[in-house]
């Protein structure tokens, strides 16, 4: 009984971490100005949130059958998540979207060049 309780508390902590990452992803999505940086924040933090949730589910798995399915989901997710964000980034890059540079003002001072 106590072993189950320890597992549940640990899983709750892991789920809390997942919520933290997910929230950071959403904040980053609205905070940064250009598509690449938004993608960085949302894709990376989103991936980590889902991965963390899966690890928590793995901890709570009642049997090996369920655990193996969670592992298969993790493997598929590790393939599909970066591929999805890569496709969006590639389209932005091919469309010629300029990159946000926070220090643009300092580096281009005096040159009066249009961005």
């Amino acid at each position, binding site marked *: 009984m106590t072993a189950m309780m320890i597992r549940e508390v640990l899983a709750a902590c892991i789920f809390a971490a997942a919520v933290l990452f997910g929230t950071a992803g959403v904040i980053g999505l609205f905070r940064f100005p250009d598509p690449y940086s938004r993608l960085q924040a949302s894709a990376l933090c989103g991936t980590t949130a889902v991965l963390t949730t899966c690890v928590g589910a793995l901890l709570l798995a009642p049997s090996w059958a369920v655990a193996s399915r969670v592992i298969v989901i993790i493997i598929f997710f590790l393939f599909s998540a970066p591929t999805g964000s890569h496709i969006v980034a*590639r389209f932005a890059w091919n469309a010629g979207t300029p990159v946000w540079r926070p220090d643009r003002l300092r580096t281009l001072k005096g040159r009066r060049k249009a961005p």
Partner: protein
Amino acid sequence: MRPEGKWRLIRFSITALAMFAVWMLFVWSLDLFSLAAGALGALGIASLTYDVFIARHQANLRFFLPRPVHLAIYLCLLFLLIYQASFRMLAAVVTGRASPRIVHFKTRLRSDFARMVLANSITLTPGTVTLDLNDDHLTVHWFFCSTTHSTAAGNEVKGRLEAYVRKVWL
């Protein structure tokens, strides 16, 4: 049997076996029904798609078969790097401090599969998104850029990842 036909048979059987393994992992039972359904499905799908999964010109078994021990080490490293990058991104979201740039560099990996894995790992890990992958040339959006020099940026971004991928796949 001619080498061409032999190579086709090898590709077909590897695809079918991999699909059957994933199926077994997913159903996790040894009933006659699930075994038969898995075998039939794996053979049928593999006969249709083996040419897509393992292209004809990938003529080396090490190009797509991972070395198990090194694969395990690589996955552990990947998990570690994902979490490290996420905490860094968490800090960047809070402070709003970043130096995003686009950098180009080359990879020394030879097979399509290994390059795909490297590009995916780069997208997952240290605040970088792969924008384009042309043969061995990678275009990467780097969120915490410290240099735009090609070789230096390559070392910084790929770093240990490429060395480990080289041990797993050729």
